[in-house]
């Protein structure tokens, strides 16, 4: 763990180290902090050219976001939450089964399939939009949650599969062999032995899938039409355009959106380093 290996660091080096880390941390949280401070200001103050941290702080913008427009924001919030959670569950399931097969078996088609997964990482969403729109229309899935969930899974699953393959690679196969001798089925040993041992890897993939769905703008903007069907990114994009400058509403909405993302992140981050390195380093 220790780079300095227990030796005392000279004081000026300590100051430099902490100084650099403090500066970096400040830059990292600055936009978030500024969004938070702005959300507490009245609209007039959000459009002032004068620098001030607080200006009659109130929760008025939050009240307007949550209750204004017939609660449309809550509708978007619900849409995004349902879509992100479904993407996470389905995405992790697909990635875990696929990743396990890639980790434990060599079968005809192994290399092309693995290569194919890497290639899908390179897909610009744009190339798929027109055909996807047609398919979803034919399946009557435009403007439905499940349509967007399935599309997001295709974005999240390849990366998650590779990650989990790498993670499963680190779990000794002897454990499964022992379980098989004790009479567990192949699916049983996957479900009872490998999955419980892979919590860090699964946490990272869950996190990645959730964020993919929670963040996506391009496809949602096209595949979900009509105010009530929008997801959060598409919805709040309307607060600020050439005709509106409702930064108070936008920032208040942004804070409300960040809370679940930060909460999820806080839960996942303890697994991040172990999960990501075991998975990410060797495919």
């Amino acid at each position, binding site marked *: 763990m220790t780079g300095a290996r227990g030796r005392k660091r000279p004081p000026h080096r300590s100051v430099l*180290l902490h100084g650099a880390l403090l500066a970096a941390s400040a830059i990292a949280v600055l936009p978030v902090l500024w969004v938070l401070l702005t959300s507490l200001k009245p609209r007039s103050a959000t459009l002032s050219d004068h620098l001030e941290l607080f200006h009659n702080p109130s929760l008025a913008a939050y009240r307007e976001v949550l209750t204004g427009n017939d609660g449309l924001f809550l509708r978007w919030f619900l849409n995004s939450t349902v879509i992100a959670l479904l993407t996470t569950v389905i995405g992790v399931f697909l990635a875990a*089964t696929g990743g396990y097969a890639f980790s*434990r078996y060599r079968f005809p088609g192994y290399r092309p399939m693995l290569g194919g997964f890497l*290639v899908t990482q390179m897909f610009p969403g*744009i*190339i798929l939009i*027109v055909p996807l729109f047609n398919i979803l229309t034919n399946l009557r899935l435009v403007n439905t949650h499940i349509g967007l969930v399935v599309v997001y899974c295709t974005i999240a699953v390849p990366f998650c599969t590779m990650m989990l393959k790498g993670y499963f690679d680190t779990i000794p196969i002897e454990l499964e062999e022992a379980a098989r001798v004790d009479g567990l089925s192949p699916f049983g040993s996957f479900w009872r032995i490998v999955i419980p041992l892979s919590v860090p890897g699964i946490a990272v993939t869950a996190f990645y899938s959730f964020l993919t769905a929670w963040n996506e703008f391009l496809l949602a903007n096209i595949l979900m039409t009509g105010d009530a069907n929008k997801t959060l990114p598409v919805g*709040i994009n309307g607060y600020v355009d050439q005709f509106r400058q409702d930064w108070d509403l936008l920032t208040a909405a942004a804070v409300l959106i960040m809370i679940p993302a930060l909460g999820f*992140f806080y839960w996942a981050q303890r697994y991040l380093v172990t999960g990501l390195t075991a998975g990410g380093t060797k495919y």
Partner: protein
Amino acid sequence: MAATAPAVERVRPPWRESRVRRFVRVHWYAYAMLVPVTVVMLVLVGYPLARGVFLSLTDADARNVGNRFLPASYQFVGLKNYTELLTGREGNFYPVLARTVVWTGVNVLFHYAVGLGLALMLHRSLRGRTVYRILLLVPWAVPTYVAAFGWRYMFNGDYGLFNQVLQGLGMAPRAWLNGPVSAFVAVIMVNVWLGVPFMMVAMLGGLQSINQDLYEAAEVDGASPFQRFRHITLPGLRSVSSTVILLGTIWTFNMFNVIYLITRGGPYNSTSILVTHAYIKFFDQRDFAVSATYGVLILSLLLVFATAYRRVTRSDKEVWA
């Protein structure tokens, strides 16, 4: 890593079985596990991709693409869209491509350098390390579009934070997002901010996987800190680095949210990269065929890059599956 198939081999049955049966018996479990993911990918990536390639060979746009009431009436035009783009007749392809390359190169360079620097600092025994780590991860945890809006607000020429500070210091405000160069620098800054935490975490993991005995041995042998970094740390990080740099390059090349939500590719198309340009072709101009052509070209470029990259890293005896 399991090298042979299948991992948990059953005892070979005493009767002779046909090829097909043996194939099924040996591999059924692997394929069964792959069915869900493969079906989804084939239906939603394979088929649309094929359609997209096909559309790039037509003159499809909003008028002739067809809908519930109107049959499609677009025509097959062969490679016309490609020749228009690649000969520069469509005008925008090469400038936008050059900008995309700069965008990707600068971003990935900063992601990697800053990420590695922060990881090296966080890898020491240090008071408050957990707090620093959580704070530094914030840009990753914040939804991209929220960050993009936040930055756009801070860059605003009339009431953004940066101009408020400049004016507070008695300097003239600047219209950051209205100048081609300053707007491009601004979107790069935002994307660097967004991408550093991923690299930092990957590098931290890489550092933790380096055997500490190597450092002690080197110290005993009198290696300077720089020599230890150069000859132990960097080689130890090479395999993580080659993976995350490839991924980072692909992601940055296709990064849509930051540019589209902050500048929409403007002013005067001066910040658009290939993806945002293709999107504007699709969404604003409804030129589906040209948009699909851009998509195919983006994919081809990345494929060539990834293949070349893998060849180079593999010649360094890297472990690629």
